[in-house]
């Protein structure tokens, strides 16, 4: 009994030591900074593309008018009519309010990009994105789901703790922190869950085993960039593409944790998203996913760059060898 209980205690200690190292050993915030910069850059570019059609896509008299949206969107979530109702008392036009919220969202993304009052900027960007997406919920697609999640992570994770104006001004802690490690793990585990779910859902559909899924996707008029007719003559190519997609997505949560598997698997995943951008015209979605992959698994959390010398700041370079797996 005594031997068994001491063995159990040893296992517990080992597990605790491993989990402490895995989740909270101090790490650089560089991967999170890459996540912040990449995400805000992509969303800013997407905002430029959306700007010419704001009223049509998000306005109260847009393509899908707000009374219909109210029936479709969940209750109690911030939306544009909360703003328009308030400003209507001041005589503001709903379309002006939509433009105002959009401008605040874009400004917040700009502040997030440069890391100026990062957490407040992230909160403003997240709320602005949420309000736009709820009011334009009839037109949202995959990129909006990931953008909303990613912006929320920017609110709660220390994404501005390096390579930011906050870091340069000494407003945030310099050097490796447990919070940065935990934030990185949250991002990594979330990606693993997302890819596993995507892979398993595809594996549940017959079209993904016969190759018809890729054939049908490439034939969607809004997505197709090339005439896919040739594919019907070589159906095995579509089948290999389908099986490859399932393998890459379902294998993601297993291979990215292996020392030898991480770079090749993330490389395969990025190739998959490049393919989606090229062949299915889903550029913004692919760019967000590539940013997430690069930040979560390819940017080293091992060492911080030196903070530039400034008043009140720590100008020393901090290099730390982390205990847990990166």
């Amino acid at each position, binding site marked *: 009994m005594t031997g068994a209980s001491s063995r159990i205690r040893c296992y517990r200690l080992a597990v605790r030591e491993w989990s402490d190292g895995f989740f909270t050993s101090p790490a650089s915030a560089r991967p999170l900074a890459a996540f912040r910069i990449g995400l805000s850059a992509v969303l800013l570019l997407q905002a430029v593309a959306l700007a010419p059609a704001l009223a049509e896509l998000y306005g109260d008299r847009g393509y899908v008018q707000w009374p219909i949206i109210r029936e479709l969107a969940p209750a109690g979530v911030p939306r544009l009519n909360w703003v328009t109702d308030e400003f209507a008392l001041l005589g503001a036009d709903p379309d002006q309010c939509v433009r105002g919220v959009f401008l605040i969202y874009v400004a917040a993304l700009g502040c997030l990009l440069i890391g100026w009052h990062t957490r407040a900027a992230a909160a403003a960007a997240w709320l602005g994105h949420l309000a736009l997406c709820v009011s334009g919920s009839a037109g949202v697609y995959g990129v909006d*789901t990931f953008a909303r999640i990613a912006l929320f992570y920017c609110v709660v994770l220390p994404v501005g703790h390096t390579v930011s104006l906050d870091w340069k001004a000494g407003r945030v802690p310099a050097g490796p922190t447990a919070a940065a490690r935990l934030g990185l793990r949250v991002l990594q585990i979330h990606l693993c869950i997302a890819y596993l779910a995507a892979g398993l859902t595809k594996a549940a559909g017959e079209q993904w085993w016969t190759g018809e*899924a890729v054939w049908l996707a490439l034939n969607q008029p809004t997505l197709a960039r090339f005439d896919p007719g040739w594919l019907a003559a070589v159906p095995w190519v579509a089948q290999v593409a389908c099986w490859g997609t399932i393998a890459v997505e379902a294998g993601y949560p297993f291979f990215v944790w292996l020392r030898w598997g991480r770079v090749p698997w993330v490389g395969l995943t990025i190739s998959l998203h490049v393919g989606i951008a090229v062949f299915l015209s889903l550029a913004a979605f692919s760019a967000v996913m590539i940013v997430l992959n690069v930040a979560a698994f390819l940017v080293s959390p091992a060492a911080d760059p030196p903070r530039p010398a400034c008043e009140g700041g720590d100008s020393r370079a901090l290099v730390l060898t982390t205990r847990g797996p990166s």
Partner: protein
Amino acid sequence: MTGADAGYGYFAPHVGSEVRVRFTLADNAGREWQDELAAGLNQEGRLRVGSMTGLFPADPEQRVLRHDLAASWAATMFGRHPTARVVIVRVEVYEVPSMAEYRAGLRPGWVQVFAATFALPPAKSPANGLP
């Protein structure tokens, strides 16, 4: 709000059919012309319009949502074309044959699944004797 309830089954478990909306408009003089919801939009806008048209229920029993969406799209057209008095909304689904059917000669094409006509009430003529 955080996206924690999001699903990740893009194009899964099966790839659906694309839906588009086309419009035939007519003015008081009987002139007719065509338009599309996504006309003039860039790819990011077209993707969003694709999501909107994809909301159109395939189930004819969902009469209210079908009518409301068609009315909303018709209103967009009346706003875009101030001279139009009548808008016919046509919802079409892009049907893609399987690869085997394609090899046998079948080709993808748009199939109409819904049509509705929306007309503005006749404009009031000015009262007699007033400028």
